């Protein structure tokens, strides 16, 4: 015959069980047989103990891409590196264009 299941209880107020002779102190967290726990809970003497929380592990920092809303002071809006990258993929940027806007293919008019 298997032993009856037990539940972890949080004692709300101190009490004594005349049948078993056991005494429970307020704020204790004993393991109580499920059927007996139901009686104590119905009487408002105990409640289910909160599940134990695992210790939080510090979250790994992720590199998040941030968009610069305004161009850096003194810049024309494009950097030499960005220009090179645009040329590499075959796109051109108008001088002074903002870097935070999506890339658009613009072909400046030929002069002369």
């Amino acid at each position, binding site marked *: 015959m298997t032993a*009856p299941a037990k539940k972890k209880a949080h004692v709300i107020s*101190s*009490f*004594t*069980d*005349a*049948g*078993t002779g056991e005494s429970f102190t307020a704020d204790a967290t004993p393991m109580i*047989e*499920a*059927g*007996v726990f*139901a*009686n*104590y*809970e*119905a*009487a*408002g*003497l105990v409640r289910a103990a909160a599940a134990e929380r695992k210790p939080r592990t510090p979250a790994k920092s992720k590199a998040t891409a941030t968009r610069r809303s305004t161009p850096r002071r003194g810049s024309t809006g494009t950097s030499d590196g960005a220009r090179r990258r645009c040329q590499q993929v075959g796109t051109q940027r108008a001088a002074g264009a903002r870097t935070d806007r999506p890339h658009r293919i613009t072909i400046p008019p030929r002069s002369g």
Partner: protein
Amino acid sequence: MASSTAAGSALAISAANPATQDAPGYAALAFTEVGQIDKIGSIGGVFAKVEFKLLKGPIQKHKGSVDYGSIQPSMANDEADAGQTLMRTAAADATSKLYSFMVTYPTGAKRYFGGRVFGFPEATDGADSILMATSTIEISTPIVKVAAS
């Protein structure tokens, strides 16, 4: 079995109800004893009497509906007793929830039944008396008897 005094008898209560109204059903429940009891009361059903008066012959008496009665256990008021606290909760319960009860005799015999606690008044008498509480349990199911093992 020889007769016995009532010393050693106990009353216990359970918030659950048996799956079946028989000895195994009640035996599977967990009961919490009510402490500090000095009297339990009378347990047993009584049938209503239905009479039929013949013109010629004696009055015929038949059995009508059965009433399993009530018990009025009295006890020293103990607010730290788990069984008494559950009795107070049952008394304050305005629903028709049935609670299960078990009376254990000193011989080991048991009496199981389902009922509702209709009251749990507390009595404060003279200085030389104990603070008492007298509950009323109305029995609503047949009494299941288990002989002493």
